[in-house]
């Protein structure tokens, strides 16, 4: 069966050029970059070249790049690292998050609050389109705010967030301005990171949404924002992240950012066309509503909800037809959980139950989109006629 892969937002297809760049560091002797002999020096050189490149492609100085084992760790380091440091010097620490953050951010913050009664989490509301409300942000800031975290692009809806507005509100708050963090994992395949994240102190990125390896990411810490390491042991990464740096992972992150940057204009133009076509076709299906249709979205994501249908059933039949898609929010069991993002937008649970995220990327073709439209239409028509039949019987 031909695979129709519409789950790029979960993990993008691995790029050949990235695998090639990493290959050198996955066989034979690879020195520990912290060592001093020639093998170590060679490895260290590769890490530092990768760091230079990541810095340039994200818009930072090389010394501001901390390599991590992925997006979740980057977010953990940002939230926990800044809050721990803040808390050592203050009576109270407050973490301010948008309600639609990824669980990597929410769980990092909630765990801090659980373990320390003087740490609390405050949430910023979003509007019906899933855009963070700056007035709500203003209300949540206080003299105790340690860090404010707002994602650059939401991973479920693809909606862009007003980071410059967030930064302006935070920087104008008194008496002291909190650190700002953005989870740019979902933004990285689509937007120029130096432009979009320029107003943020901390930026989390990862490689596998860009066709690079999993367990590879970075936290950008601009302008000397103070943070404690989560894993201090060994003192690597300027004392911010202990543990041997994975040369292949660092090289893979740089290579995937480079390839993404190189193809960005072409991919954005092409996938934007798919997004419009897919959105238009789906909006004709019974009970279908495009999520955040009026908001600025990245081209790769089409999130929809189907009234009266269940995601589990849509995904099952799509899977049978070879379509890989998701309901956006997956828990570790693999079940589609009710989305906290859709709940924050005020989307009724009955409608959220029928949600579907179709996400595309550089490898998606026009034919893929046509075939998806055909398959999804027949799946939806089948389920709507079956469910009306079942409810007729129930009546």
């Amino acid at each position: 069966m031909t695979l129709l892969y519409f789950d790029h937002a979960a993990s993008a297809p691995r790029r050949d050029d990235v695998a090639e760049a990493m290959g050198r560091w996955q066989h034979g002797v690879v020195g520990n970059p912290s060592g001093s002999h020639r093998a170590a020096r060679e490895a260290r050189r590769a890490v530092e070249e990768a760091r230079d490149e990541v810095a340039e492609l994200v818009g930072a100085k090389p010394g501001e790049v901390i390599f991590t084992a992925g997006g979740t760790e980057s977010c953990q380091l940002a939230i926990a690292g800044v809050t721990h440091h803040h808390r050592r010097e203050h009576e109270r620490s407050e973490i301010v998050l948008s309600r639609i953050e990824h669980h990597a951010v929410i769980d990092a913050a909630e765990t801090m609050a659980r373990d320390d009664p003087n740490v609390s989490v405050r949430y910023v509301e979003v509007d019906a389109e899933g855009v963070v409300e700056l007035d709500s942000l203003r209300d949540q800031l206080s003299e105790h705010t340690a860090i404010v975290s707002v994602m650059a692009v939401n991973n479920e809806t693809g909606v862009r967030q007003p980071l410059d507005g967030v930064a302006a509100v935070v920087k104008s708050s008194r008496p002291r301005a909190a650190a700002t963090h953005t989870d740019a994992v979902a933004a990285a395949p689509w937007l120029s990171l130096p432009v979009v994240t320029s107003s943020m102190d901390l930026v989390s990125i990862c490689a596998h949404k860009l066709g690079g390896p999993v367990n590879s990411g970075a936290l950008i810490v601009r302008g000397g924002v103070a943070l404690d390491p989560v894993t201090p042991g060994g003192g690597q990464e300027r004392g911010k992240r202990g543990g041997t740096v994975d040369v292949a992972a660092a090289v893979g992150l740089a290579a995937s950012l480079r390839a993404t940057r190189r193809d960005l204009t072409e991919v954005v133009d092409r996938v934007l066309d798919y997004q419009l076509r897919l959105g238009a076709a789906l909006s004709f299906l019974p009970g279908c509503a495009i999520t955040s249709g009026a908001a600025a979205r990245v081209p790769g994501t089409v999130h929809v909800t189907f009234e009266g249908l269940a995601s589990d059933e849509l995904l099952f039949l799509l899977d049978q037809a070879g379509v890989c898609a998701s309901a956006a929010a997956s828990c570790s069991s693999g079940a589609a959980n009710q989305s906290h993002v859709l709940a924050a937008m005020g989307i009724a649970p009955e409608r959220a139950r029928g949600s579907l995220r179709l996400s595309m990327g550089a490898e998606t073709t026009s034919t893929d989109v046509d075939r998806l439209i055909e398959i999804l239409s027949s799946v939806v028509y089948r389920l709507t006629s079956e469910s009306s039949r079942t409810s007729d019987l129930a009546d």
Partner: protein
Amino acid sequence: MKVLVAMSGGVDSSVAAGLLLEAGHDVVGATLKLWGGISDSGCCTVADVDDARRVAQILGVDHHVFNYTEEFERHVVTPFVTAHLAGRSPNPCIECNRHIKFDLLFERAERLGFDAVATGHHARVVAREGSHYLVRGADDQKDQSYVLGYLREEQLAHLLLPIGHLRKVEVRDHAERLGLRTWDKPDSQDVCFIEAAKGREEFLRRRAPLTRTIIVDAQSGEELGEGVGELMTVGQRRGVTPARDGTRRYVSRVDLVAQRVEVGPLESIMVSTLGLDEASLTFARESLESGATVLAQCSAHGSVQLATLRHEGNWWLDLHAPARPVAPGQSVVLYRVDDPTVVEGAAIVSAP
């Protein structure tokens, strides 16, 4: 046949899937995620989903996770709490089987194009003269026909119970033969959404205010102490101190409004009639009517007793010999007198 197997990750449903596959069916596995909270004995934890997925991988069948957490909350957990607050003692496993595994999963399986649903319950479906009957499993110790008592004919016609003819030890042998790693996993037990260490009391306390009641000997008027009314069940002896002469005492009445629990010796609590909740009454065949004699079983592994159905205003079950009372909310499953392994019907016992 295209069969959807409900896989819990346990040995029974794993072997059920394996046997169907060997019989040449087109098998897809599904694990139902039922409970969003913390639990340690359940059929729905992440670890169990992982086990079921691994079993499906070993067997080489597709595996999906179906999220029924909202429905489980609505049809099982909330009614469980509400029933306790109303002084009833519900059986959540029965409700889960009825509403989630059979109503919702059957409907879904049909929509998704399956011919049948299979589970790893120890019970059998037998087709006789064009009708389908639920029959006890071959392993007396493990028989689960009681928790399936409410299945209707049209559901039984699309249900496969591939291990119902096996004894548990044979199921484990098959698991070993099929190379399934769950073969030495302990059976799940108790209520799956309640943590064993913390128990029912804490679970209920987190969701509703509970009633402190005094415990009184109904005959002597002696006050034995205090208890939590919602946790006391008619017929229960555990937690009730014996009388001075050593006679065991049992709960005879729970009155949450008066905050009073009455206890007495066994003979004072024996009953000879059970009221049945009409809405819950399910018959396997239409010929079962007032006056019919049946074998009644009042708990998952309880013994059966002869009884006669009576429809007089409400439905009643007249027991041929006095028996320990059955708490309202519990189910009574009826078996055929002339063929005692065959399920005749089921009903929830109403308040006396």
